[in-house]
């Protein structure tokens, strides 16, 4: 599927998950998106899936403790200053379940966007504000590069028998990692200029023609949004 209709469909699914009131609908969206994410390579998907799962579970566990809804108490906790009683009611649990599912669905939609779409082509399809769009794309790639650089520093120190422990140990790496990333950014800017970036008369490689599936996806995205608002 082309990246633009795919992104539109994912955005529509995330919007429906946020708006829909029926847990079954939200759960169905989350399950569908989870299945889609499982088609991505294991090495790349685990961080997105783990992040989504941990966030959703946190919402499910914490929100009943801080909200005060319902009368069917199923657990009575102590009184905490400011927050009040940490009672958990069945109504709070049901609401927390829906909120957690919503968060999971939105997180999984983002995971599918990051894992499955050709982000290069999606960003280029913007057709305007090319420099800003490219900056977004490069920033997306910066995070894993910084991660790799930081790992390189830790490894270089371990190679000398110096262990990097705790917040203080890692904080010591912040400055060299940032200096290194600035050097990288300069080298990249130089390379881009040497490759003609910024020259007038730029063209764009044509994307693949939209298939029937692409058009269907776009129509489905619109219908999903309209349906969610209407219903």
């Amino acid at each position: 599927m082309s990246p633009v209709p795919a992104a539109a469909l994912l955005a529509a699914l995330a919007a429906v998950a946020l708006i829909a009131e029926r847990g079954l609908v939200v759960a169905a969206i989350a399950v569908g998106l989870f299945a889609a994410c499982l088609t991505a390579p294991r090495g790349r998907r685990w961080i997105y899936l783990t992040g989504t799962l941990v966030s959703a579970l946190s919402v499910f566990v914490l929100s009943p403790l801080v909200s005060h809804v319902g009368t069917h108490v199923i657990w009575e906790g102590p009184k905490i200053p400011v927050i009040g009683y940490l009672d958990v009611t069945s109504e709070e649990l049901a609401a927390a379940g829906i909120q957690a599912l919503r968060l999971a669905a939105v997180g999984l939609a983002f995971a599918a966007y990051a894992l499955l779409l050709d982000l290069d082509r999606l960003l280029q399809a913007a057709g305007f504000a090319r420099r800003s769009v490219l900056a977004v794309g490069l920033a997306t790639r910066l995070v894993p590069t910084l991660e790799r650089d930081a790992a390189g520093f830790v490894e270089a120190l371990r190679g000398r028998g110096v262990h990097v422990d705790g917040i203080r140990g890692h904080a010591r790496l912040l400055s060299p990692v940032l200096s290194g990333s600035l050097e990288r950014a300069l080298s990249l800017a130089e390379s881009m200029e040497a490759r003609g970036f910024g020259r007038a008369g730029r063209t764009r490689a044509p994307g693949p023609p939209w298939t029937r599936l692409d058009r269907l996806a776009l129509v489905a995205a619109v219908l999903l949004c309209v349906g969610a608002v209407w219903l």
Partner: protein
Amino acid sequence: MALAQVERLTFSYPGVERPALSNVSLQVEPGEIVALLGPSGSGKSTLLRALAGLVPHFHGGRFDGRVEVAGRDTRRFSPADLADEVASLFQDPEDQIVFGRVENEVAFGLENLGAPPAEIWPRVHGALADAGIARLAERRTETLSAGELQRVCLAAVLAVGPSLVLLDEPTSQLDPEGAEAILDLACELGSAVVVSEQRPTLPLERCDHVLFVEDGRLTLDAPRDEALVRLDPAYLPRQAANLSQHGGEGESLVRADNVSYSYGSARALDGASLELRRGEVVALTGRNGVGKTTLAKIVAGLLEPEAGEVQRHGRVCYLSQDPGRYLVTERAEREASLAVGGDLIRAREALARVGLAGLERRHPRDLSSGERERLALASVLVAEPDVLVLDEPTRGVDPPRKTDLVEILLRESADRATLIVTHDLVFAGDVADRVVHLEARELARA
């Protein structure tokens, strides 16, 4: 008529008194292959950047003289304006990759130059095929090895089809076969090629003309045959010495038996074995991606094997690839003292041993690239390890400094076991007692 002409070029970087290039004049003819040699920091990269227009447009600084490429004066035409005639390939491919997918990366230059949209994909796929990496078209760039990335960058150059190709140490991360393939591809383009290399054998075998830069001055500008007579012997092509494959007699310090390792689902090392004994220097060679670095990290204790056993005796230190990039403190002596609990006296001694006496209080990032590498070496030598593991220590190192490195390593080699991962077979022949060649998915027996 010359394709590129440099006339009395003198250039200084901003804030630096001493010129990086002094009164340089030269010509590059269409289709000519030029080997650009010289010590690190002598001005080779600056000269290549001047030919691409990056000096002075990108770097600023003081620029006197004239550089003209394909009839365009680089003072009036920006690097982007010259990009249809001049293409550059730099040392580290990771610093050149813009996009997340290979075919988009190769298309980037064509799009910038305004190639007709209908031509872009055929040219991209043609260039990928010419570079021998058609199978990588859909791959994500972060999943590629350094050698594959360098081929992607070369494919981007091939797609544009420039008149002048500038190669700044493009093979420093590649095994000999990969380096040969990259240079052959570049030389078969039909474009003029100026290639700067610290392993001069390959470019000297292929070039028509040789330039030698020293201290910012062009000290040799001659056809290949004449240059081979006049060049500093350290730069002349030579065969690697034959090395034994039999182990030494000293105390066994590391023994790895049938070790295997995977990164995620990708098998990096499969049943490799290696023994290191005190007093020997072992070169670990093999093609890119065969698992040399993984084995070296297992030997150093930085990775634990999934299968097999490793026994280590004594202290093991490991110096990573491109070590000058991984310096963390703000003074050279502090950097060298990290491995000995902050003992500055031992750190200063170690710095003196690698020729950095007098630079103890300098910030590591203010040192030259060669000095940074020696600082990194001092930072492991200071611990007086029983086992020293060096990963590609000659990357980007010029021939005279390689000779210095051989001397430093051999000076104390009797007290320890040294394992050197390298693609530089000549260096391996100079420094090592024996060689272990690692083959893909086979046992490395030593």
